[in-house]
Structure formats: structure tokens, C-alpha cells
């Protein structure tokens, strides 16, 4: 009875958190002092930013953490309105049975600059009643005034050793049979992302067989977006119409964003070079086009048109 293992084995206390030892040590000081500055957690996906934040909140705020805690993640509306209303109203109130209140804003780098500016004032106005924990993938996307108001913690990708240890722990408790090579393979594909690792593990285990090198490979290749690969293959073979239809399909039906498409195309192309299926002249030409396309999309062009134009370069 568990549902997703990522949730079931989300560490509940600071001590349980995998990797990130030095960070935990510093955070534990705040627990002892019962006070903390505004914090900013930065790092790639799946390294425990959210988990650490929630565990920290639970230990500092104690039994009444739910009443004194506000979590806003990227899918919640976080325009200026929210910052001015919801967050302000939350900060204004006195903490209930706790030293202060905590607001956790996930993926702050996806907030608009305006919203960030609205936030900075609130961060220092309510220091007596509330503390902020911000998390983001790239601290460079956060405006300087906010960075200067926070103690910044950089989360590194989780190293292989601790990841395997955790995976073994999960296997033991879930009674999952495994081979060591299988787990090593998971670590290889997860690239330091614990969420991905556990998802791969559960996917492998769902078929009821041992987790082996092959089964991991099978899951990973099944889960990898196939359409992009097919799209590039058809573009390379000269069938532009088919490639374009696939592009529209993935972008419109699956709702993949332009930036994600670029990343996927880049990964696919570089894999082709790795495998020796593409010569370096063509590769560097394509990288030129991809980089240019990426830049234009970020500059505010229509991603679909730009990507269609990019596809013509593959012909």
C-alpha cells in the first residue's frame, strides 16, 4: 500500500535526507537556535530541495507546522497579485504555537521579475513573523535583491554511493529483488536525480521481476520520449512534412514547451554523435542551428515556427 514510492520514501526528518550532509549540518544549527534567516535552495531537479525544506519546516515548527506553513509551487498562480495578497496576508498573522511562520516558494526562477520585485519588500518587512524558503534551479534567474536577502545553499547532484544506499534501503522495505548491476545502471541513468532514480526503480519493479541491468535499460528506453527521435530521423532522411507533423503533435498534444523540445533535440543529436551515427561536420553545423534557435525562443519568438525552421536544417 504505497502509491508512488517517491512519496512514500520522501525523507521526513533532516537526518534521513540523502547526500547533502554539509547542508543538513548547517540547517540543524537553525533548529537548535529556533530561528532562521531567509533561505534559498538552489540545485538541479530531484536532489532534495523540496524535501529538505519540508523536513526543516516540520522540525522547526513542530506539531503545528501545517498551520504556520504556506507552500506555493510553480503551478500555483504566483503573479504579483498572489504575492501582494496571499503571501502578505499569511505573513501578517501571528504564528500559532510556533516561533515564526514559514513560506516555501518552489521554483522561484519561474516567477516573473515583477513578482520577484514584489516579493523582496515582503521578505524584509515581516522578518519578525515569517521566514522564507525559496527554491530554484538556477540562482542566476533570481534578481539580486532577493539573493542578497537569503542564505544560499547549493544542492549538488546526489552522488552514486548515497543513491545506491538509499535504493537498497527502499528495495529491502518494499521486498524488491535486485542485482547490484541493476541499481548501478539506475544511478547511471538518473544523473544525480533521486526522483528519477526512484521512478525508474518502481517502474522496473512494477513488472514483478528482478531489477537487472537489462530491465532498467528497457524501462529507460521506454520512458524516453520517442517522438523526438523519430522526428529527427525523418527530418534527416528528408521527409520534412512528416517531421513537421511530429513536431506539431508533440508540441500541441503533449504540450511540450519549446525549451524542452530544444533540450530533447540536443540530447538526441549529441547521442547520435556519441554512437558514431553522425559525423562531426554535420554535428557542429546542427549545434550552431540549435543554439541559435534556443536563443531566439528565449528571446520571445514563436517556438513552433523556430523549431520548424530548425528542422529544415536537418534535411
Amino acid at each position, binding site marked *: 500500500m504505497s502509491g508512488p514510492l517517491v512519496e512514500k520514501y520522501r525523507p521526513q526528518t533532516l537526518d534521513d535526507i540523502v547526500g547533502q550532509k554539509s547542508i543538513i549540518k548547517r540547517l540543524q544549527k537553525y533548529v537548535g537556535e529556533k530561528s532562521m534567516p531567509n533561505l534559498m535552495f538552489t540545485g538541479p531537479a530531484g536532489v532534495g530541495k523540496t524535501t529538505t525544506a519540508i523536513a526543516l519546516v516540520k522540525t522547526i515548527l513542530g506539531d503545528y507546522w501545517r498551520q504556520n506553513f504556506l*507552500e506555493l509551487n510553480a503551478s500555483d498562480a504566483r503573479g504579483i497579485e498572489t504575492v501582494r495578497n496571499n503571501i502578505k496576508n499569511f505573513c501578517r498573522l501571528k504564528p500559532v504555537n510556533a516561533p515564526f511562520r514559514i513560506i516555501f516558494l518552489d521554483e522561484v526562477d519561474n516567477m516573473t521579475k515583477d513578482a520577484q520585485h514584489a516579493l523582496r519588500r515582503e521578505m524584509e518587512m515581516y522578518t519578525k513573523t515569517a521566514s522564507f524558503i525559496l527554491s530554484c534551479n538556477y540562482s542566476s534567474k533570481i534578481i539580486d535583491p532577493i539573493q542578497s536577502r537569503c542564505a544560499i545553499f547549493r544542492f549538488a547532484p546526489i552522488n552514486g554511493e548515497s543513491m545506491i544506499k538509499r535504493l537498497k534501503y527502499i528495495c529491502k522495505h518494499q521486498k524488491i529483488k535486485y542485482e547490484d548491476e541493476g541499481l548501478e545502471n539506475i544511478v547511471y541513468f538518473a544523473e544525480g536525480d533521486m526522483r528519477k532514480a526512484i*521512478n525508474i526503480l518502481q517502474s522496473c519493479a512494477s513488472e514483478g521481476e528482478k531489477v537487472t541491468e537489462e530491465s532498467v535499460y528497457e524501462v529507460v528506453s521506454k520512458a524516453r520520449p520517442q517522438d523526438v527521435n523519430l522526428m529527427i530521423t525523418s527530418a534527416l532522411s528528408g521527409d520534412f512534412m512528416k517531421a513537421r507533423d511530429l513536431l*506539431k503533435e508533440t508540441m500541441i498534444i503533449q504540450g511540450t514547451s519549446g525549451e524542452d523540445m530544444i533540450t530533447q533535440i540536443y540530447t538526441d543529436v549529441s547521442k547520435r554523435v556519441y554512437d558514431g551515427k553522425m559525423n562531426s561536420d554535420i554535428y557542429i553545423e546542427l549545434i550552431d542551428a540549435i543554439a541559435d534557435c534556443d536563443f*531566439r525562443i528565449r528571446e520571445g519568438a514563436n517556438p*513552433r*515556427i523556430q523549431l520548424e525552421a530548425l528542422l529544415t536544417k536537418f534535411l
Partner: protein
Amino acid sequence: MLWTEKYRPKSIDDVIGNNKEKKEIQQWLDQWKKGNPQKPLLLVGSAGIGKTTLAHLIAEQFDESIELNASDKRSQDEIMKTVGESSSSMPLFSQFYKCIILDEVDGIHGTNDRGGVKAINEVIKKSKHPLILIANDFYSKRLTTIKTKCQVIKMKKIRSPSINKLFKKIAEEEGVKADPEVLKELSKKAGGDLRSALNSFQAISDENKTLEKEDIENISSKDDRSTIINAVTVVMKSKTPSNVKKALITEEDPNLIMEYIAENVPREYKKKKEIQKAYENLAKADLYLGRAQQSRNYGYWKYATDYMGVGVANSKDETYRKFTKITSPTVFSKMRKNKGKKNLRDKIAEKMSEKMHISNAVAISMFPYLKIMFENDELAWEISDFLEFNDEEIKLFRKKKIPKNVIRKMEKQKNQIRESKKEKYREKISEKIIKETGELAKNEVEDIESVIETQKEITKIEKKTQQNYKKEEDKFKIKNPKKTVENKKETKEKLVEDSKKDDKNKNEKSKQTSLFSF
């Protein structure tokens, strides 16, 4: 004087076209005159075909009329104030009808005219007077509630022969010498919009009283769809910059034109180099459209238009000699078709983001794994139970439904687990209660002075007992460490009993304090 005013029909019969619809309206009118109240009339149709004219002519047949159109503020209050009251009241003894015209109903503004649609519904419900509603777009969202309550009359565009006939008559009366062919062309260009046709007719014949072929070339035909397809065709087929530039002077949104051109480039151009070059230009055009939008400097549009027009046209080596059917962009139809799917996906992502502290984007990135996990029936049930998916949402991850026997089995298991959890919780709670009530009793005891002394005694005894059962404990530890706990209690109670005095409180007290002491 404007001809549109001058030649405005004086009676319903004078109105050109829509004969069937006119008959229907006449019937409606006759019924009112006989004193039979009718449903409100809803006239829908494109611009310039005589809806408002017709409405005014109908209104003349009644005793009085009120009109409310887009130039008036039409919020709920405003509508109720101007027509609401009068629509529901009636003179007592005479038949007195006030015709109410609500023009451009589909143009009621969402925020500025708050509650407007609701007010119209109200007026329809209450009205004892003839009511005429006029709208352009039959499928407008604002009409959905209204149109069911009305007699809908869909007015058609006016056919060019009818317009032509009228033009001949007007030309005669105004003394304009016009080539019959030119008049014919002019009435065709109107695209069924009589008002615009009449306006342009007047505009070109005002200067000189003759009308020749060259004169009408200045008038762009009104139908926008043909111009965009025209423009794209020219871009595809021509290599002459001046022609292309001319064709792209339209009122259309450049973004739409770009979509059209992009859609048709690979359908028309066949060489790789051509497609590449064309798309390079389109990408640049798009870049400038984006910049224009971001900086609100719409001067950039001209570069975009040149890139997508002359740039794309110039990308081909030579014009293809074949018939080209211009295809409208497939993106829009795809978007429409997949709206439901997209909504479903977003709903699932939202559920996940709530339960798992992740953003929608991360949730969607987990979909492929979920798809694999959902191949297992039991796991599928567990996950959808955890995330509270409904059947429709499960369907996104697996084609088959979860078998019923699996569902039953899993639900049973869940209940068992829940029961055992409840049991544990109950135990915890009862322990807590015992503790708290014990403390309470302690306080009560402290209140009684007489007990204080006995208490002292008890503490003495307790010390003894503690010492005693430490000894006992040591003994048991050696013998059987597991039993110690039970034995502890026993020995303790024994000792307490030994020290028992007449006072009941004392007894209780000692029990409890001794309970706490280990």
C-alpha cells in the same frame, strides 16, 4: 447626404433580400397586432444586411420604441433601468405596445457591461412588450442562454443580383453614368454587405458622375478570407518583389499570414534548399514579430512582412508550374481537437503537484514512468488511489480498466490497514487519557490539606518500594529480562497494597505516582 440613409427602406417590403425571413417577421408582427404576445425576435446575420433597418421598421408598427445599442453602457443596472421597468408594466385598459430593440447583443462587454446578459434574460422573462434582439454571431457565447428563449431568424447575406438591381435604380436617380459591367463587379465585391457596397458606390461616384472600370480597382473587396489566401498564393507563385509586397498589404494579423505561409511552404516548394531558405526567412520574420510584441514597437512589423513575403518568395529557384491549393494552418484545428486531452493532462498534473510537492511540468515529466507502472493492475490501483484519479484520468495511462476483482481485493487490504491504524491510534489516545486524568487526580489530591501528611508518608513508602523493586528488578534482569516489566507492576502493586491505609485517595495516588516513577 449618405446614400445609406437616403435609400434606407421605408417599409418592410422595401427591404432587399431575405424574403422568407421577412414573411416570418410579418407573421410575428401580425400576431402581436392581434394581441397575442410572442416570443422575442432574435435577428442574426453578418453586418450590413439590414438587421437594424428591419428592426426599426418593425418598431414603427408599434406605439412606441426604445433602443439600446453598443454605444450605450449595458450593464445589469443600466439595462434594468432603461428597459427593465417599462418592459414589465402595461397600461390597464388599452392595448399599448412599446417595442424594445436591443442591438448588438453579442457585443456586450464582459467586464464593462457586467451582468448584461443576465439582465437581458430577465427582461425576456418579464417582458409583456415586443422585444427584438440583434446579433452578428449566432455562436457567440453570450447568446447561448438567450437564443433558446427567442424565435431565431437567421438572415442571409444579400445576393449580388439583388444588390445590382438596387444599384441600377440608384444610379438612375442620382444621374450617375455607370457601365453595367462595373455595377455588376461592384455588387459582387460587396460580399453580401449592402451597407459597405453602397458606401463605396457613393464614394467613387461622388467625384465624377461617371463610373468606369478603373474606379473600382481602388476598392478592396471586403471579404478578408480571400485576401489572405490571395496573399499567400502570390508569395508562393510570384518572384517579383513589387507584386509580393503589394499582395501583403492587408488588414490581417501578420502572425496569421506567417502561419499560412509556413503551412504552405513545404507543400509548394520541393527542393531542400528552397525549404531551408524559406524557413530561414520565416524564422527571422517570426523573430521580429516577437520583438514587436515584446517592445510594443510595431514598426518592426514591416521587416517581418518583408522576410515572410519577399524573403520566402525569393527562396525558390523558379515558380512551380502546378496548381496549388492553399491549405489553412493545421495548428489551429489541432489545438481545437486536443483541447480536451490537454485539459485532462493539466488536471492530472495539478492533482500530482498538490500531493507530491512538485510543479506541473515535473509532474508531466513523470508520465512515462507512470505509464509503465500502470501496467501492473495492483500498482495502478494504488497509485490512482493515492493521487485520487478518476476513471477518465486512469485511461490516460492504461487502455484497459483496472479489473474489478483487483479493485475489490485492494480496497479490502486498504480497509484492513486503515483498521489497524485506527486501533493503534485508539491505544495511543487511551494512554494519553490515562496520563492526563491521572495528573488531574493528583491535583485534586493536593488540594486536600489532610492528605498532605499522608502524602509525605506515601513518598517515604515509595522510596522504599523503589529501592525494593530495584532490587527485585536486578533479580529479574538476571533471570528473565522480558518478564521484568510485568513483574515490576506486580511487585509494585504488592508493595503499595502493603502500605495501604484506610484513605482511598491515598491508595489511588500511590498507584499513580508509582506508575510514573519508572
